[in-house]
C-alpha cells in the first residue's frame, strides 16, 4: 500500500497540478511530461514556502506535513477545477513520439527503442546498485531524523546529539521533502531516499530533456529520438569528472543538489526557451509562464542553498542577453520579480551565515 501512496504522490499529484496550467501547454494540447514536471516544480516551490518558515520557527515536522498536505490538497482542487473547466477545449497528448500517427520510419523506431532501453537500464541500475557517498550520511540522515524525532535541523544528523537550529541548511530543506514522502507513505525514509526518489528524478530529467527537444525541433520529430539518445549517452558517460552534473544525477539522485543540477536547471532552460520564443514571436507571455519560472527558482532554493544564487544568476544573465538582443528592457522587470523570493532567501542565508 505504501508503494501505491508514494507512487501517487510522485506521479499523479504533480500530473494533476501541472494539468491545471492550461495556458502553458499551448495550442489547446496538454502534454503529459510537461504537466508532470511542471506540477512537481510547483509542488517543490510550495514545499519551500511552507517548510522554511516552519524550520526557522522551530515548528514540529508533523505540523509541516499537515500544513503542506492541506495546501497541496487545495492546489489539487483548484487544478482539477481549472483542468475540467477547459477539458472540452483541451486535448490530451499521450503521444510522446511526435508524428507516430503519420508513420515513423524503421530507423527512427530503432532510435526510440534505443532510448527506451537505455532509460530502463538506468532505472534498473538505480534499484540494483548502491553508491557509497559520504554526503548521504548528512542529507539522508537529516530526513531520517526529522521523520522519526519530529524535529527539523535541531539534531546533529551524524551523531544524534541535540544542537541549536541549523538554519543555514534549513533554508534548503530538500531532505525534509523526502521525510514528508516517507511519513505519508509509511515507507522507511532510507528506502524513499535511496530507491524511490532516484526512480522518480531520473525519469523527470529525461522528461525535461524531452520537452527541450520538442522546443528545439518543432515539426521535425525525426531529430528528437537522436537528441534524446545523445542526452542519455552523455549522462551515462558523464563520469569523466567527479564534479559533473551527470555524475550527481546518477550517483547521488537523492541529494537536493543533484535534483537542482539535473532537473531544476534544465527546467529553467526550458521555461526560458518557452518565454523567449514567445518574445521572439511578439506574443504575450502569459502569467502562467512567469509563475512557472518563479516556481522553478524557488525549487532551486529548496534543493540547495546555492540554488538561490545560481538560479538568480541564470535568470539574470538570460534576461540581460534577451533585453539587449530584443531591445526590450522591460523584460527585466518580470524576470527580477521571479528572482525576488530567491533574493530574500539569499539575504537570509548571508545574515545567518
Amino acid at each position, binding site marked *: 500500500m505504501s508503494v501505491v501512496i508514494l507512487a501517487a504522490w510522485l506521479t499523479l499529484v504533480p500530473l494533476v497540478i501541472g494539468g491545471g496550467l492550461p495556458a502553458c501547454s499551448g495550442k489547446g494540447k496538454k502534454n503529459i511530461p510537461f504537466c508532470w514536471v511542471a506540477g512537481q516544480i510547483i509542488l517543490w516551490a510550495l514545499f519551500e514556502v511552507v517548510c522554511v518558515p516552519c524550520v526557522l520557527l522551530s515548528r514540529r515536522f508533523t505540523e509541516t506535513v499537515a500544513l503542506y498536505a492541506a495546501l497541496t490538497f487545495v492546489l489539487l482542487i483548484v487544478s482539477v477545477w481549472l483542468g475540467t473547466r477547459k477539458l472540452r477545449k483541451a486535448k490530451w497528448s499521450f503521444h510522446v513520439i511526435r508524428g507516430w500517427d503519420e508513420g515513423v520510419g524503421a530507423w527512427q523506431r530503432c532510435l526510440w527503442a534505443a532510448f527506451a532501453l537505455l532509460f530502463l537500464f538506468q532505472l534498473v541500475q538505480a534499484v540494483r*546498485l548502491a553508491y557509497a557517498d559520504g554526503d548521504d*550520511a548528512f542529507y539522508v540522515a537529516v530526513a531520517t531524523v526529522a521523520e522519526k524525532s519530529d524535529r527539523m535541523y535541531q539534531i546533529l544528523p551524524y551523531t544524534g546529539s541535540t544542537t541549536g537550529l541549523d538554519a543555514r541548511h534549513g533554508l534548503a530543506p530538500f531532505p525534509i521533502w523526502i521525510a514528508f514522502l516517507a511519513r505519508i507513505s509509511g515507507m522507511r525514509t532510507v528506502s524513499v531516499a535511496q530507491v524511490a526518489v532516484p526512480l522518480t528524478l531520473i525519469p523527470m530529467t529525461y522528461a525535461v530533456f524531452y520537452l527541450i527537444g520538442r522546443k528545439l525541433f518543432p515539426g521535425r520529430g525525426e531529430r528528437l529520438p537522436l537528441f534524446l539518445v545523445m542526452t542519455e549517452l552523455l549522462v551515462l558517460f558523464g563520469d569523466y569528472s567527479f*564534479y559533473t552534473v*551527470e555524475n550527481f544525477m546518477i550517483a547521488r539522485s537523492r541529494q537536493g543538489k543533484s535534483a537542482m*543540477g539535473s532537473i531544476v536547471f*534544465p527546467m529553467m532552460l526550458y521555461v526560458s526557451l518557452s518565454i523567449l520564443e514567445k*518574445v521572439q514571436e511578439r506574443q504575450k507571455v502569459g502569467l502562467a509562464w512567469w509563475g512557472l519560472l518563479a516556481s522553478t527558482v524557488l525549487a532551486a532554493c529548496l534543493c540547495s542553498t546555492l540554488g538561490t544564487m*545560481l538560479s538568480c544568476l541564470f535568470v539574470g*544573465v538570460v534576461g540581460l542577453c534577451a533585453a539587449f*538582443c530584443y531591445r526590450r528592457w522591460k523584460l527585466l522587470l518580470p524576470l527580477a520579480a521571479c528572482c525576488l523570493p530567491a533574493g530574500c532567501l539569499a539575504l537570509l542565508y548571508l545574515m545567518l551565515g
Partner: protein
Amino acid sequence: MWGQIVALFREYMGTGLVIGWFLLSVVYLLLREKRTHLRILFVYTPILLLLLFFNPLFARIIYRAIGDEIYYRILWLIPVTPTIAYVAALLYGGLKGRKRIMFAAACVGLVALSGSFIYQNPFFHKAENRYHVPQSVVDICDAIELEGREVMAVFPKELVQYVRQYSATVCMPYGREQLVERWTYRHPLYWAMEEEVLDAGQVAALAKEAGCHYVVLPEKKQVDGSLLDYGYEEFGQIDGYVIYRDPTMNFSLVAE
C-alpha cells in the same frame, strides 16, 4: 585566484574531450543558428557564464559568500548535455539515408570514447537490500534498537556513514565527520577504535565516558585484552561483527 579557478575548471573537465565537444557545438551554433532565442540560451548565456566563472573578481566575491569547495557548480548552469545533443541532432537532420545511420553510430562512439561510463565508478556496488546500506548495519541496528528510546553505540569506520541513514534512534559518539580528511578534529574514541591492534582497556574507558550502550567491533579485529574484562558482556555476533553491551548503562524503556 586565477590559478585556483583554472585548476578547478581542469578538474571539472576531466579528460576535456566532452567539454571540447561542447565548445565546438557552441562555435557551430554561433555560426549557424539563426533563431535569436536559441542563440541567447545556447551561445550567449554559456559564454557569459564562462566569462563570469573565469573572472577573478566575481570568483573572489562568490568564494567569500559560499566558499571555494562548490564554486564549480556555477558550471552546472551551462547546458553542456543539451547543447551537444542539439548540435548532433541538427547535423543528423541534415543527412539522408545510410549517412544518418553512420553519423548516429559515430556519435555513440565519440561520446563513449570521450567520457567515462558512470557505472564503472568504483563507488558503485550491488545493493544488499532495499535500503542501499550494508546488511550488517541493518541487522546490527535492528538488534540493538530499543523501542521508545535512543541507544548510543560506537561502530567501526566502515559502518559509520550508514548507521544514522537507517536508524535515527541509534546514536553515535562520532559520525561521518571523522572520515573527512580536511576536517581535522578526531574524537579520541575514533583513534582508539581504528588502532591496528585495539587496546580493550582504552576503548572500554572511552566508550563508557561517551555513554555508549554498545561497542561494535569487527570479528577479525586484533584486540589487546578483552572488553569482557572491563565489565562488558557479549550481546551477539552479527554479519562478521561482535557486539558488546555495557550492562551498567541505563537501558530503561522510558524516554529520557
